[in-house]
């Protein structure tokens, strides 16, 4: 038993961090705020070349044949760097949708509405998508995004996640049954959780850096217990959620070590909470500056809210854990 990252996993994380730093530095990402396309095909290709989408696909299917733990490590870095785009869905669709794995097609996903006549369906990144997966309770279906009667949403909560809405979502072509849908949800919980943990960790760094630098009453605000304790709680949340996400990922790869469904649901639950709470706390630590558009604290929080929506709801996740505890 060795629950530390292996050398290969560390190398993967380092590589992804370098790629993000070089290709997706924050100011370049931010340049696309409010745009309808937030990541261009060449950026997407680079992610594909780095294996972001094909990582878990078998080698004979053109993938890297790695496990969910490796993917979690990579996704954590993507979250930390705030890389935009339908990353999670495109990764989950590799092997299911032609062109997803090699980055030729961006794939989005949407929950199949549970109630009819409910609020309109909101779809992320629709304008960039080559395929859209509809995740139902018992099935996965595929839709052609171009055929949808979609309206662009003027303004998104997350300025780096452009949205469209459709009033009616066609059923689409079945591409998976109950097991596939369950696996999609399970893996979304873990890898979405990894993105969220990356966000949560990034906000710790951001808040701590500001608390060291910003001075009030003659000393850095980070020397006041009130601020210290806010930061300490942020670290606790992100480290606890990180352990949960990693354990869930490993459990998917090594099914004998535990209950992967329970671990995945718990990991998603804690990752959502960590990223949301840390995003809010990061704003608070920044004081008035945290309420300015310029300071990026809000971007992490808004992205967290977007990713939370890609997972199942927290109530559902908690009940899933309870059922299997």
């Amino acid at each position, binding site marked *: 038993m060795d629950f530390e990252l292996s050398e290969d996993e560390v190398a993967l994380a380092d590589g992804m961090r370098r790629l993000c730093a070089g290709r997706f530095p924050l100011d370049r990402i931010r340049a696309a705020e409010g745009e309808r396309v937030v990541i261009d095909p060449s950026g997407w290709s680079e992610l594909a070349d780095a294996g972001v989408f094909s990582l878990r696909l078998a080698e004979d299917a053109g993938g890297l044949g790695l496990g969910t733990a490796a993917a979690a490590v990579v996704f954590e870095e993507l979250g930390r760097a705030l890389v935009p785009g339908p990353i999670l869905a495109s990764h989950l669709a590799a092997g299911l949708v032609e062109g997803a794995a090699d980055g030729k097609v961006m794939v989005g996903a949407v929950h199949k509405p549970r*109630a009819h006549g409910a*609020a309109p369906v909101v779809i992320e990144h629709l304008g960039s998508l080559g395929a859209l997966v509809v995740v139902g309770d018992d099935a996965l279906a595929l839709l052609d995004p171009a055929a949808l009667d979609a309206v662009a949403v*003027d303004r998104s*909560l997350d300025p780096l996640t452009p949205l469209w809405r459709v009033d009616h979502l066609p059923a689409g072509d079945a591409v998976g049954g109950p097991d596939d849908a369950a696996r999609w949800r399970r893996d979304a919980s873990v890898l979405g959780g990894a993105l969220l943990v990356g966000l949560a960790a990034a906000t710790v760094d951001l808040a701590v850096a500001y608390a060291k630098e910003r001075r009030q*009453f003659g000393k850095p605000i980070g020397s006041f217990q009130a601020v210290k304790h806010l930061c300490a709680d942020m670290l606790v949340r992100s480290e606890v959620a990180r352990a949960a996400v990693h354990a869930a990922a490993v459990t998917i790869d090594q099914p004998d070590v535990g209950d992967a469904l329970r671990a995945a649901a718990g990991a998603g639950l804690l990752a959502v909470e960590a990223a949301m709470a840390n995003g809010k706390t990061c*704003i608070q630590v920044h*004081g008035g500056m945290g309420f*300015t*558009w310029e300071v990026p604290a809000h971007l992490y929080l808004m992205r967290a809210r977007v990713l939370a929506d890609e997972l199942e709801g927290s109530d559902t996740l908690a009940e899933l854990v309870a059922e299997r505890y």
Partner: protein
Amino acid sequence: MDLRYSESEESFRSGLREWLAEVLAKLPPKPSHLDWPGRRAYDTTWQRMLFDAGYAGIDWPVEGGGRGASPVEQLIYLEELERAHAPYVGVNFVGLLHAGPTVIVEGTPEQRARFLPPILRGDEVWCQGFSEPGAGSDLASLRTRAERDGDEYVVTGQKIWTSHAEVADFCELLVRTGPEDSRHRGITWLILPMDRPGIDFRPLRTIAGSTEFGELFLDGVRVPVANRLGDENDGWRVTMTTLSFERGTAFVGEVLQSMELLRGLRAIAQSTGAWDEASVRRRVGHLGAELDALWALARRNVSQAARTGVPGIGGSVYKLALSELRQRIADLGMDLAGSAGLVFGDIPGARNGPVGNLEIVSTWVHSFSRTIAAGTSQIQRNIIAERILGLPKG
């Protein structure tokens, strides 16, 4: 303890209510948030209507030209305006609630005659130049410098969180006239005319995407010494006197508005079926109980102010509790919104309840500033611990 209003209070209320019913219909349509001249025109028109009806400066003493209403009448005033969905104080905020009251107490007869009537009539708009990029919670560390040059001060420095500067005629400005490290002892209060050369203003974009605040850059701006309020280096005391005007009514409108929001969220939950979830009902009930309690606390603060002239334990306790409660109400809204919460705007065809999607999302995003603006929750807790509970300073 008596929660019934006296006959004279009831008559004040009914007079106000009748007047509101009559005049609100005559108001022009509300301008867009981005239309500054329009906002100034709208807000000052409303202020003029209040003035003409005798409601301007409701909390100002009669000798300052105000109505000199009792704290309870002030409460009724705020309650009725909120219930009638009357316009907010808007661009008149600083003049009416901060600068004006300070001029009343600290101004010379000439200053009072010059500056007070235009505030009450809505003729002149003020903004605030207190905070600086390096002086937020620690206001006494401000560094904007004013050098005396004959009968003028020459002011150079930078202010932040200035609202309505786009349309302001004057700015209540705190400057350092004492040595750099003189802290509270070297600060002076000036009235800065906003048309002077050397003033530059840059709006600050908030996380809500709006530009409610901005940065004020002052480069050798000349301010007449006659515009000084109080003595040189006595500006800190001058500033503190304004606080004595607080009658426990701050945030009253916000409590009432939050109640209406919560009722709106309740209606949404009922229409979407979320109300079938016991957890949703209990959240609404809990938040409702807290709002009821804060409304009670508001009335307590006002009653104490009415008796003693100063509000009681209330200010920080109330502010701390309300700002955090407000965030939890906003969270409920976002939870009820589900995926629609990702859309920063209304959604045609969806949910036609009393609270639209834009209001839910906007309330949530704005809620994060509640625990920061006007003293962070951390500062409020310090104040409660030190000033109310008497715990020793760090």
